[in-house]
């Protein structure tokens, strides 16, 4: 496993390196963009993926580029507290946030009204990367493909654990039900860890969670990931087939990006993006991101802005299907 890991890491580093070279034609140079310390607002309490990404960024922005940065956790109300706060700050590059689905693509459809505009209220600066969730079943169930899962679910009702109502794993669960024409029983938990605990204990038949983060369970044959909702097979878990290649159109991307208040000077935004990409290309960061199950991808500021806008449209029908609208 170690060998594969280091091979994967070096390969990823190589790819990232090549990309960094090809991107170096851009105008801005990576480096500090403000003399003030930068606050990176996180929509979740300390300890989660967004928080770890923010802390990695803060660490290497300082050590590599002398840009002081602190992490500011402002959890609450599905990330909207943090987004609302950031939207109201001065666009001087001193306040940024780790953007993700919760406040930007789920909340606009889920909530009746939002105190901020997910597009016009922000400068979407740099895409960081994404992970994708998948469907896990028990090894002794004998199920290995989506087709077998459908057959089993039609025979007896299947329970699935999610990390909460309105969470990405719940939305995926409902999307799978709709696409596969089956009916499963949703059992919500507070976060994926307790759901996985009940799955291990035999309480749950299946669960949905990020696939790459659970590669240990797959390797130990404690769970079988029968499909991942990624556009293509995912680095780190290449043996897990996608829903798409089994004939089902289910793609869900759990992305993170760097976003600031609207009106950040384009030149400064470009420097922030260049610096972020340089940090993401560092071998230590590449390794940490692989451990977190995040597939990093460089993207221009315009492409990232378009990406967020398209994602709102992608999530809308999923949220309506999950029945969490207006809640």
């Amino acid at each position, binding site marked *: 496993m170690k060998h594969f890991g280091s091979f994967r890491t070096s390969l990823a580093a190589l790819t990232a390196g090549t990309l960094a070279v090809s991107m170096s034609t851009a105008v801005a140079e990576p480096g500090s963009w403000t003399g003030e310390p930068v606050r990176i607002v996180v929509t979740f309490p300390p*300890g989660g993926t967004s928080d770890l990404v923010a802390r990695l960024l803060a660490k290497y922005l300082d050590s590599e580029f002398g840009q002081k940065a602190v992490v500011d956790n402002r959890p609450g109300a599905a990330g909207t*507290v943090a987004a609302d706060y950031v939207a109201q700050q001065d666009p001087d590059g001193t306040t940024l946030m780790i953007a993700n689905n919760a406040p930007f693509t789920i909340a606009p459809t889920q909530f009746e009204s939002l105190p901020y505009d997910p597009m016009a209220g922000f400068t979407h600066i740099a895409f960081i990367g994404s992970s994708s969730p998948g469907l896990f079943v028990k090894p002794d169930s004998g199920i290995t493909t989506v087709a077998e899962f459908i057959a089993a679910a039609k025979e007896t009702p299947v329970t699935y654990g999610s990390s909460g109502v309105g969470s990405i794993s719940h939305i995926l669960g409902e999307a799978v039900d709709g696409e596969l024409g089956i009916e499963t*029983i949703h059992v919500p938990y507070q976060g994926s860890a307790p759901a996985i605990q*009940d799955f291990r204990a035999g309480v749950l038949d299946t669960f949905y969670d990020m696939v790459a983060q659970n590669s*240990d369970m797959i390797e130990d044959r404690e769970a079988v990931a029968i499909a991942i909702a990624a556009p293509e097979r995912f680095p780190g878990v290449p043996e897990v087939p996608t829903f798409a290649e089994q004939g089902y159109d289910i793609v869900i991307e759990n992305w993170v990006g760097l976003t600031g208040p609207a009106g950040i000077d384009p030149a400064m935004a470009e420097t922030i993006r260049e610096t972020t990409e340089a940090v993401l290309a560092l071998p230590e960061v590449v*390794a940490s991101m692989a451990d977190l199950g995040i597939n990093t991808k460089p993207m221009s500021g315009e492409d990232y802005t378009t990406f967020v806008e398209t994602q709102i449209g992608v999530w809308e029908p999923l949220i309506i299907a999950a029945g969490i609208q207006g809640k």
Partner: protein
Amino acid sequence: MDILTAFGSGLATAFHPSNLLYCFVGVFLGTFIGVLPGIGSMAAIAMILPLSFYLEPGTAIIMIAGVYYGAEYGGSIASILMNIPGTPSSSITCIDGYPMARSGRAGVALFVSSIASFGGGIIGMVVMALLSPGLANLALSFGPAEYFSVILLGLIAASAVSNGGALKGIAMVFAGLMLATVGVDLTTGDLRFTMGVPELRDGVNLVIVAMGLFGVGELIASIRANSSGQGRQTIDYSQFYPTRAEWRASLGPILRGGGIGSFFGALPGTGQTVASAVAYAVEKKVSPNRANFGKGAVEGVAVPESANNSATQTAFIPTLTLGVPGSASMAMVIGALMIHGITPGPRLLVEHGDLFWGLVASFLIGNVMLLILNIPLIGLWVRLLQIPYRYMYPTIIVLICIGVYSLNNNVFDIWLTLFFGIAGYLMRLFRFEPAPLLIGFVLGPMMEEQLRRALLLSRGDPMVFIERPISGTLIAVTAGILVYGLWTTFRARRRSRSASISMSE
């Protein structure tokens, strides 16, 4: 088995100079933060998390753990001296600790609290060393039905914590349960009782309720007490150290508290507050000195402190061996390990055994450090009581505001704390106890969540609680306690009635 060898090599790891140094940094910071009302181990861990990136993973986790259990030592100090819990779990210590301080025995209370914390910490460490794999399996055999039954047992036990009438105690438990329903319904995602306030979507934070009811409520009450001439508290230096009898009286509670605390700590989610509440309730039933509980019994200080410290140690079992964090602080421990590329879970004991045993051994060292650190400071803490209120209380108010603000970096939480402070003051006026409310508030959401989950999984069949062996046993014990409680009340009433009849004759 080879537990002793493993522990030995763990000791060698823990005695490494840099580990010793960071263990000290951790426990020192933890105690200090624990003393400050409202700022708990979570804020402290968030503060030192960036520092942990630069350390070896083993050293990092030893330091973070030190903060976590150090805070429990410090938490009881303000509870005893000022009736203001430094951490939510030490609010149970207020019940007997504060009356002790009022009667000039603050020194004794602090002494017993330190010793009990140490005892509980060591019990928790031994349990963790001996039973980690077993306890991890126990947590796995606890499904939703078992969780519901054990919480129900805790709640029935907790309604006995109250010192006022039983009816008032039960009323407060229910008030806590109702308060806990505010926020997003975890099973359907519907909003309940948020009255359109977005900050209430995630419910009311435990720290806010504890700080408001105990801390701010106490401060408001003291303004009145102060104007009527009741001033500083006296210190009886002749009663500074516990007597032999008090030592002996504390031993049983420390052992029982440590045992109960270890159990609740190992169950992810229940945590220190439940551990100390249940341990206190049990002790109040079995102690020979139960008549004095609530009036300043040393047992009432020893038992919750022992319980919350042992729970603090065993909380690492599910966190490390299952990867299931029981609290926000534990989630940060997982985060700190993940940033070093270590994923907590069933593999940790095998792949990173040195880290696990180094941590267990550091608990021993850390607890000894805390004892050495805390005992000499008792004199200093007690002298704090002589600071005039006009300097002391504004300082505390500022500290509470900082602590509460640090939860979500949100000013709304400060206003909410004021609201609960006024509620706490009114409760004091009408002699309602805040402790049962707090317990209902902590246990309510967990009980509801597990109840609904168990019923969802059983397709609505309530027999699941009786049919599963562990759950069935727990329900039987709960029913037994209820029947016994009713029988004793009934008997007492009949006796008093027959006594009044014979008097009238």
